[in-house]
């Protein structure tokens, strides 16, 4: 069953190593979508999964994990909803019209909680 996501809930986003900058901040590319079929960004609801588990279920042990509060995307016009799947009960979506500036804001509000390569 889908759960309500509070503004203070954490959201995890898996991060390709190239999307973490030398100073440990996150590139806006981490929040850009592929423009097909629409502007949806998959994340994990943090209280339902650990960062390490988020990488394990995607078989990407060399990746990192970033965390941002659900209230951040909501403040810039996105909807944040819990959309559990059989594979990932924590699966959630940041959905709405995405722009370059919004990607920058999401990235700026994201903290790396598991650095790339930490599990290898």
């Amino acid at each position: 069953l889908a759960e309500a996501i509070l503004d203070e809930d954490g959201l995890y986003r898996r991060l390709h190593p190239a999307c973490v900058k030398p100073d440990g901040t996150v590139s806006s590319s981490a929040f850009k979508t592929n423009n097909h079929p629409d502007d949806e960004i998959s994340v994990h609801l943090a209280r339902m999964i650990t960062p390490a588990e988020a990488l394990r279920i995607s078989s990407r042990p060399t990746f990192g994990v970033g965390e941002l509060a659900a209230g951040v995307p909501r403040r810039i016009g996105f909807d944040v909803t819990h959309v559990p799947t059989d594979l990932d009960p924590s699966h959630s979506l940041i959905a709405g019209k995405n722009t370059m500036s919004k990607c920058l804001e999401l990235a700026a509000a994201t903290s790396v909680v598991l650095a790339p390569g930490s599990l290898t």
Partner: protein
Amino acid sequence: MIAVTTSDIRLNEGYALFSEAGMKSRPVTVVQQTLTHADIHSFKRIALQPSPFAPAVSRIDAFGNLPAGWDSYDARPITRDAVDASRSILYRLHEAALDRGTIALAPYHAAPSPDGGVAIEWRRDGRSIELWITPSGSLSAAIDDPLNGTMEREFHSPDAAIAAIEAVIG
């Protein structure tokens, strides 16, 4: 005067600047002439030095090998057009940096983009510009400075993008 006609260096194609050996540290005059092995060694030793642009170029080249889904979601492969356009921008900025004797035009970071493009960031003195190269090679940017906040711009030519980069961090 140094002449290069070998496929080893490929300066005539403009790629020697981004070769594995690094990028040239000063201008080199090119004429058509066959070099000896010793000449080539000398050329590499003298003319090809590590450049602050080289890490970004190497990263961007590697982006071209990323498969579909490289971000663990549904990212598209980085297109050849995006890689080539990124290299072209860096090549021209590198030339400008050589002319001015500065490393300030070297990028801070480069990242692949899930739409098949590339993002390149420059920073200086609290200002930054992030250039987004689309899968087709077109250009836009987000410019951030403490006084004006973040501003988005689209560019109709590489010249316009380079001018904006130089205005922000040059």
